[in-house]
């Protein structure tokens, strides 16, 4: 038991920092570049991502383990996962709106934006490729850790962007190029975590 916990913690550190979903796997770049203007928005987006990715990892790995794999339908996983995720996001939004109003007020506005986030589908597919789906607890924790990694990256970028907003930079570099350069430097910094592996 002790060993499994150590293994799980190792997996989570790898998923959140070493193989950071945005800076080393390039998943979820659209919200990373698009919704990182202010720290508040970035935090909200990160929170919503943690919520949806954790849930999607759990549901997708259960579906794969108990339906697709036994029936030999694993080639349908892309179609099934994208539809499940789209439905899940709608469903979560409805449930939160009706029953957990405080959470809906904090995260709800970001939920419609998440369907287009390739990190959700990417994590679900990676769980299958890496064999984590065998144990739904592992895949859920890996999904959670990946989303935490996304939140860390987007909040850091938002903080940096807030600081740089009024800097005097060459006109062609204003906007997206500056954000990309900043992300590049962050990616270099995050390669330092590979020593943790």
């Amino acid at each position: 038991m002790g060993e499994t916990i150590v293994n799980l913690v190792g997996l989570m550190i790898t998923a959140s920092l070493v193989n950071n979903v945005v800076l080393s796997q390039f998943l979820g770049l659209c919200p990373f570049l698009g919704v990182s203007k202010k720290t508040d928005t970035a935090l909200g987006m990160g929170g919503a991502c943690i919520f949806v990715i954790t849930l999607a990892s759990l549901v997708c790995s259960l579906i794969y383990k108990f339906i697709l794999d036994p029936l030999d339908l694993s080639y349908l996983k892309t179609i099934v996962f994208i539809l499940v995720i789209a439905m899940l996001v709608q469903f979560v939004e409805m449930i939160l709106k009706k029953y957990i109003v405080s959470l809906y007020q904090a995260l709800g506005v970001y939920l419609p934006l998440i369907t287009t986030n390739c990190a959700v589908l990417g994590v679900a597919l990676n769980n299958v490729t890496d064999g984590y789906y065998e144990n739904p607890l592992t895949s859920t924790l890996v999904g959670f850790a990946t989303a935490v990694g996304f939140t860390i990256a987007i909040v850091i970028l938002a903080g940096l962007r807030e600081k740089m907003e009024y800097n005097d930079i060459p006109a062609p570099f204003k906007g997206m190029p500056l954000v990309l350069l900043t992300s590049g430097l962050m990616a270099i910094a995050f390669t330092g975590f590979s020593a943790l592996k």
Partner: protein
Amino acid sequence: MSTEAKKGALGFRADTPGERFFNGLIAENPTLVLMIGMCPTLAVTSSAINGLGMGLATTFVLALSNAVISALRKVIPNTVRIPSFIVVIASFVTLVELLMKAYVPALNKALGVYIPLIVVNCIIFGRAEAYASKHGIVPSFFDGIGMGIGFTCAITVIGLIREFIGAGTAFDVQILGEGTVVPGAVGAFLSTYKPISIFIQQAGAFIVLAFLIAIMNKIKMNLAKKGKDTSKFGQGCCSSSEEAAADKILADKKNEKEAD
């Protein structure tokens, strides 16, 4: 709105196969002009061959899904068009994934999860929504081919730049650095090059793309100075639309609060 509206990109007649092809390749190049579909652009361009493979896979999906969506455009009710488009696109992506696994396993392994992720590539969905759902089958098919080839060219070039600086190779042929294929004194000079390996790592993708967009911004500014139309140029990623959506949502929320 008579003759001018009929005129398509580069002086071709609008909505003919040729016009659609060159529109996607040059006038509305998805990566360099519209700046959509940035995730694969950054992720798979560590070498020119990866970029080429990804581009061709995307072109295949784009052309066929455009044709099918255009053929079904009168059957699909407007309210469920988004799930329907997703199913059509995901089917073709599965098809391309299985084909690649069977015939080019090495490339399939190199591209990994990014092949199934073509489903969420905004170029494909964007073209289905903006063009294929409103036009006939033949122009839609060629729109897909043009956009796909435009995307392929752009990411192959980005891959080539990164590969050349980062490993000294071009399409896996060693040109700069040790073991160069260039003979004689020139080769001896070229072999002194030390590859800057950061360019084939993740950070290199961000840096190369940043400079590419900065160059496009400069071109855009020069065009605007000459009084030409620059409205087609995008802002980078799907971010402009997403940013606008986020801003709008936040503004709505604020208004609601004030109303309370």
